[in-house]
């Protein structure tokens, strides 16, 4: 199916280095836990937002290039991406909101 995939192996190693560098950045940030990123923003630390964005970057490259989705046709791409991109953020949103609510109720009635 990967009719338009690039030839050779150089692109594979390029993505390998990208994934490695992003992971290294995550680990280094996780170990030093920089003070200036500890501020709260949209319900959690800025550092956590950075972790989540870097994770999505890694996921994007794995799915697009390693799993060849970039070279599938449009209907295929939509049927793979849409269910996941609609359902998972929705589920995350309702469950985290609910978790926050239960936490606040626990504080009110110990």
């Amino acid at each position, binding site marked *: *199916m*990967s009719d338009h*995939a690039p030839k050779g*192996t150089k692109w*594979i*190693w390029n*993505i*390998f280095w990208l*994934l*490695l560098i992003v*992971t*290294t950045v*995550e*680990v280094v940030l*996780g*170990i030093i*836990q920089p003070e200036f990123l500890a501020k709260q923003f949209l319900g*959690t630390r800025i550092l*956590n937002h950075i*972790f*989540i964005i*870097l*994770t999505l970057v*890694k*996921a994007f490259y*794995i*799915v697009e290039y*390693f*799993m*060849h989705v970039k070279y*599938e*046709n449009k*209907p*295929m791409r939509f*049927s*793979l991406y849409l*269910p*996941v991109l609609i*359902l*998972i953020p929705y*589920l*995350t949103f309702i*469950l*985290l909101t*609910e*978790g*926050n609510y*239960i*936490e606040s109720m*626990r504080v009110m009635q110990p």
Partner: protein
Amino acid sequence: MANASSVEMSTEKIWEGGNKPLGASYGKLMMWFFLLSDALTFSGFLTAYGLMRFKYENTWPIPEDVFTHFPFLEGENPLLFVALMTFILIMSSVTMVLAVNAGENKDNKGVSWWMLATIVGGGIFLGSQAWEWYHFITGDKGAIKLENGRIAHFADQEGHVISLSQLVHGMEKGHASNHGDKFTTEEVIAAFNSQSTMQLRYPGKLREYVNHGEAKALVAKAKVVQGANMVENEYGEPLFANFFFFITGFHGFHVFSGVVINFIIFYNILLGTYVRRGHYEMVEKVGLYWHFVDLVWVFVFTFFYLV
């Protein structure tokens, strides 16, 4: 534009079969269906973890306090070992792409070597996970469970958490980790009462301390907890260990099945099955599964160890 396409549609016999709207083979489509449903399963687990973590926001154990070991290294090395595991899994994902790539060039020998490398990578990952589980179950510094069910750690004057070994045998003689030594509740209570510099610290991001005077009454009715099981664990909330076992266990089981399937494909490559068949689509299909396992680990790594 709409006109042009409708003209095209009417000339094409779309109801008589042979149409491939998704441009993928049957086997590949079925693999994708499975992966989509599996992705939603994993997201269900991870969001459930998020729900409970938000519920116990202030007392949930901090991953950097829990996963601090690295083989042959003494002391605290948070994140290093999982970083290594992540690297191993990414590496084996790369060898899998190289196998698929070699398959497209009809290079049977290349495919077999890269498949073997992928299997070895998966094996190393499983071994690392077994090591991680072993240390999680055996426990690190030990804790006590108070009468109300809360877990508390012992801390020295400066507020650093110390191990039961250091509490009982003294800071010089004791080890920073218990290394599997078991301590009875009586000797821990006696050791705590005789050292007035010791205090208690609750797990969680608030870093709450209880000073020696107040802690004495709490410790008197407490019991020692070392390691982790499904009922209680020394790290904090019982659910923390339950989620750890379930999510990393479920992912580990995926890796295990992946290694088994990879091995079957590897065996078929050696038999020359795909040379006879003329294409290596089976390698692409297990490749999809293997990359998916790597993808899930990327998320588990973030939400279990980093955030």
